[in-house]
């Protein structure tokens, strides 16, 4: 497994467009999320010049996982779209709080059936830890995520210090939560 992290301009040529296509395969085609799409790619207003991407690839160069990191000092998904997930608490806006979103670790080349539609490979935990490490390198001490049940379960299994921020919203019949992850150095 090879992990690459950086802003769009820092990524190898063509990789970001592959990420957008991968996200479409996972979130739109496989999970059925109602997201902004352009052809067979997925991206939204939070894919900006300061957004950091963490991408895992297999030995063939195919993407096996991705994550998106945003500073909470600028507009981000939870703050703009899902502030009600914070149970009445103010939306965090701090240099030491980053948001993790669009997290997926589906290996479409794997012959092993996925346990959950969002995670199917052994790289899941590695990608999560790499994402947290990249956030920490950029000053994060805590991470906030907007997560479906699957991500919250993953966090519970990893032994990371994580907990939900409040009750879920029900979207298309599925609960989503805001989850905190404490970065322990």
């Amino acid at each position, binding site marked *: 497994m090879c992990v690459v992290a950086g802003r769009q301009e820092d990524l190898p040529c063509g990789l970001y467009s592959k990420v957008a296509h991968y996200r479409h395969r996972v979130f739109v085609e496989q999970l059925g999320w109602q997201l902004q799409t352009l052809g067979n790619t997925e991206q939204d207003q939070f894919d900006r010049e300061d957004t950091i991407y963490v991408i895992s690839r297999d030995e063939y160069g195919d993407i096996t996982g991705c994550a998106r990191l945003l500073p909470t000092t600028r507009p981000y998904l939870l703050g703009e779209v899902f502030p009600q997930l914070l149970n009445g608490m103010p939306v965090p806006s701090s240099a030491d709080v980053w948001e993790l979103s669009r997290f997926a670790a589906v290996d479409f080349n794997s012959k092993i059936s996925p346990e959950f539609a969002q995670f199917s490979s052994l790289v899941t935990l590695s990608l999560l830890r790499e994402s947290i490490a990249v956030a920490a390198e950029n000053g994060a001490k805590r991470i906030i995520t907007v997560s479906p049940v699957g991500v919250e379960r993953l966090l519970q299994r990893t032994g990371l210090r994580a907990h939900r*921020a409040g009750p879920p919203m029900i979207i298309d019949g599925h609960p989503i939560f805001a989850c905190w992850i404490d970065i322990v150095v």
Partner: protein
Amino acid sequence: MQFNEITTADIAIVPIIAVSADSYIRLTFEKFWKMKLVHLISGLDEDKSVWLQKGAISTEITGYTEWVSETTPALSIGWDWMIQTEGLYKRISQPRSNLMLMDSRQQDFGAVKTSALMEIVIDEIAWQKVIQQYISRRYPY
């Protein structure tokens, strides 16, 4: 100006809960024990197929359930379950929550002990029947 004497009988004791800066709702076990939890939603996981050594496939039905308190802010607790061969629902995960239990000196019990104590409360709730009826209505097949 006339003042009426207020007695303790006139004062309604209203449990006050609040969200801490770290998003936890902190309660003693005694207060948590008295809180009413209501079912919010339950759902099935996609059927999981497990390839056995000889190529046979077995499936197990699993899902999640979410419960909340009738307070603002709200206490939120969820856990995973499976349907056993006898048709009984069994909890198969530790609870996931925004709750942190504390002792009488308001010292946190920590995540591990809080989880263990939540399990005690959860296992006292007749949640299996609630979920069974909900799942039957949500997935009528």
